């Protein structure tokens, strides 16, 4: 992170702003409410690559932890003790993973990116569920079984999250054709961006 160029740094900052805004954009679908936070962290990894993507999400989490209310339910150092904090940690690793794997793909298509996203989703779940389990059992002393956690926080969330993954893949493909795509170690000159 030390050798970030100025424009890379600013690009990260703008994605932090996008992720923060995404946590507040709520789309009511039936009885459920989608927040776009997860989709924006996926896109941060896909569009910015592993280094910038993970940096952006990391800065987002740090911003929330020092007390700026950018998370879906507030912010502050006490957030670490909330059962859902693990998802935020998962987002950082997932952004890195999506950036890393999508740059190794031979061909960027809707299908291949969707696969990358599903991999990222698995990482987020791994962190999110284990954090939820540990915090519930050892910090708030509410003994919940592992199976319960997997069912309510994992399986029941899969469908909406999978839809967000699909949307992110679709948007990333469009962005790639529009030139909004940071290749490894190279930041695209903005004047080459084609109009979408």
């Amino acid at each position, binding site marked *: 992170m030390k050798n970030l160029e100025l424009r890379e740094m600013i690009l990260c900052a703008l994605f932090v702003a996008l992720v923060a805004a995404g946590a507040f*954009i709520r789309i009511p679908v039936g009885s459920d409410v989608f927040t776009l936070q997860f989709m924006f962290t996926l896109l941060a990894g896909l569009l910015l690559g592993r280094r910038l993507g993970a940096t952006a999400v990391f800065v987002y989490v740090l911003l929330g932890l020092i007390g700026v209310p*950018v998370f879906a339910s507030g912010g*502050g150092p006490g957030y670490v003790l909330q059962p859902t904090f693990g998802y935020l940690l998962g987002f950082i690793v997932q952004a890195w993973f999506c950036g890393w794997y999508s740059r190794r793909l031979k061909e960027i298509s809707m299908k291949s990116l969707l696969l990358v996203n599903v991999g990222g989703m698995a990482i987020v779940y791994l962190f999110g569920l284990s954090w939820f389990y540990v915090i519930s059992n050892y910090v708030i002393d509410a003994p919940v079984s592992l199976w319960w956690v997997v069912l309510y926080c994992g399986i029941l969330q899969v469908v909406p999250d999978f*839809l967000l993954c699909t949307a992110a893949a679709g948007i990333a493909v469009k962005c790639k054709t529009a030139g909004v795509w940071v290749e490894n170690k190279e930041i695209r000159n*903005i004047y080459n961006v084609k109009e979408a």
Partner: protein
Amino acid sequence: MLTDITLGQYFPGTSFLHRMDPRMKISLLFVWIVGIFVFDMPKAYGVFTAATVLLAIISRVPLLTLAKSIKPLWMILVFTLLIHMCGTPGEALFHISVFEFTKEGFMQGFVICLRLALLIFLSSLLTFTTSPLELTDAMESLLSPLKCIGVPAHELAMMMSIALRFVPTLIEETDKIMKAQQSRGVNFESGNVIKRLSSLVPILVPLFISAFRRADELAMAMEARCYRGGEGRTRMKELKVRALDYGACACTVVLMAALVVMKVEGI
């Protein structure tokens, strides 16, 4: 629909808590959080609750606004309380079918909920009395000793400040793009899940393109003004630790010392 989002719950004022140095506030908050977890005697909870209420009154943040900060965690608190009430053996208060709600369980659950609620109230007092920019400045200053092991404190703080500055701009832009697409016949308001999600594409793709362009423009503007990182950079508003911060620090030390004595002596 999108323009009424305010990021940050900062509540401007001139109270004692508002005037404190943000670095001191963050450090003391950490001490308090650790304190709440270490001292688990009933009396200590009484002290912490009283202190939190006192701080809330001093800060002059409307109590209703403060109470709202617990809303997102409401479900977790109730759930924790219920689990404890029926999970702990003891004197029965009442029954609902096979579940037995006990007095001991209620006490235990109540203490744990109180602990969580205090955590939330204290953290939200920080955000209510400190503007987001003060927070990022404080973070830069607190992390700067770590610069020697390679933590880019200035860069992190700069990214945060830029992000905070651009959240309203990007939201406004999203709104503008949505209106532009609506005027071209895109329908965001109806259809099933798939349709609604696919209607995000014509919003987000232009949004990302414009974010990339903005980043480039801002980088150029900063370079034109000879920005070259935190090295040797001075600031307009220096953070200063003043008498009142030392006072708050002393109060915390006395409080924690008293609690340590209470814990050791077993009072």
